[in-house]
């Protein structure tokens, strides 16, 4: 038996990260779209800042951005690469599965950071919304927690559906439903029953923890329960996504 050297996890992750960030950069049109939608809504909702408060508007916009990252960006990229056999090609190299997914997730974490920062900057300059340093810090922290829900939901969808085109169609539908029902229910346009249901949906809990996080003084028991429910959603979706995920679509 020959002496064989296995590359370190750090070297493997570094190579994967470089390639995944280049891939994301080359797909910058979709990145711009993911950034633009929440910023456009933020500009369109300028009048609501005075009615509902800055954190309400910012949290809605960030939630919409997180939705787009998890459902439109992450899940479709995974489905496409699985369909093309890119994962199978990587898996015949001397590396375990976790660096492949960790690299993909780290790129999405960077996207969450980017969307949240863009919304905070646009909120500051367009809507004149300024938060306390603790509010910004908690806002970023809650964005990562909320982002985990939509990334794991995207993972669950690619776990349950093998065909890339079907994944694309389903994620668009789920994205559209979340945004439309979520936003209108938040504004009280869909009645109390749907409003209450949305409050505890992945849209409502993420939006709530973001909003409460941005004004830490208002964090209450409801916020803590919403945070726990959000984490529960992330764990549930991730469990489904990991259990049913197949590296090949064949």
């Amino acid at each position, binding site marked *: *038996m*020959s002496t*064989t*050297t*296995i*590359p*370190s996890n750090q*070297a*493997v992750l*570094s*190579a*994967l990260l*470089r*390639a995944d960030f*280049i*891939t994301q950069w*080359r*797909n910058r049109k979709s990145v711009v779209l993911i950034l633009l939608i929440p910023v456009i809504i933020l500009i369109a909702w300028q009048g609501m800042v005075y009615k509902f408060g800055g954190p309400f508007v910012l949290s809605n916009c960030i939630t919409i951005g997180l939705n787009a990252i998890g459902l439109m960006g992450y899940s479709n990229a995974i489905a496409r*690469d699985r369909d*093309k*056999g*890119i994962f*199978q*090609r*990587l*898996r*015949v*190299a*001397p*590396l*375990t599965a976790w660096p492949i997914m960790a690299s993909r997730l780290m790129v999405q974490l960077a996207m969450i950071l980017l969307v949240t920062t863009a919304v905070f900057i646009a909120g500051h300059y367009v809507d004149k919304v300024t938060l306390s340093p603790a509010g910004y810090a908690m806002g970023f922290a809650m964005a990562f927690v909320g982002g985990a829900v939509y990334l794991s939901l995207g993972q669950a969808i690619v776990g349950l559906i093998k065909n890339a085109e079907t994944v694309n169609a389903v994620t668009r539908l789920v994205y559209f439903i979340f945004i439309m029902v979520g936003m209108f229910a938040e504004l009280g346009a869909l009645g109390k029953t749907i409003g209450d249901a949305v409050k505890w949906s992945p849209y409502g809990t993420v939006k709530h923890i973001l909003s409460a996080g941005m004004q830490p003084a208002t964090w209450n028991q409801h916020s803590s329960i919403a945070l726990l429910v959000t984490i529960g959603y992330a764990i549930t979706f991730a469990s489904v996504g990991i259990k049913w995920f197949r*590296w*090949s679509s064949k």
Partner: protein
Amino acid sequence: MQHPSDTIVLSVEGLHVNYGSFHAVSNVSFFVKAGEIFGLLGPNGAGKTSTLSAIEGLLQPQAGTITVAGYNVKENPLHARANLGVQLQATNFQPELSVAEIIQLYAGIHGVALTKERLQEILISIKLEDAAKKRFGQLSGGQQQRVSLIIAMIHNPQLVLLDEPTTGLDPQSRRQLWERMEAMRDNNHGILLTTHSMEEAEAVCDRIAIIDHGRIIVSDTPQTLIDQHRDNPEVISVSRRGKITLEDVFIGLTGRTVRS
């Protein structure tokens, strides 16, 4: 040409792969030596891809032992894969990445230090020095196969799996690929080749095995198989050129029926 050494770089013993009640591979055994091109031939659905997937560690066989460069694929998967270079059928690299970036990615995940000079040498060796910045999807079929082959070889593995590497290539590209395979053999790499081209198997393989319905039905050198079966009535009945070829032996042994 260098003759195969006695070092076995791939050993497959008693391999069984089932999909539910369907037996895709049944009790398959063979080996590949260093400095040898071994062809695994079979009709569609015969069990070639399942056998390759088991060697690559992409599926868990129900029974059997596979060792690559002495490492058991099940017990030491990373060590086995570190000694394995793979060229898969499909073009499976991120289409957004350039040729140079793909080479850098796979060098990185194999722990191969790649200087700019070394990268340039590699690109020159596959005649793609002017295409370093081209996206993989912009390359011709032959160029894609050359990139795919160099990726399979980037870590200098003892065993290389080539899964129908010449499918869709023009005669010039195919001949060039054959020369590259022979050069790899001369450098003491063991090669496991699957192909539907009997001409290719006859031209480059030192030994072949014909697999059908999940079982290896014959295994030997191409010429020995032709000699052994030239009087077989089934083989004679399918002969078209007045002399027995490997393709005649293949069809005679596996039947005329078209497989899905």
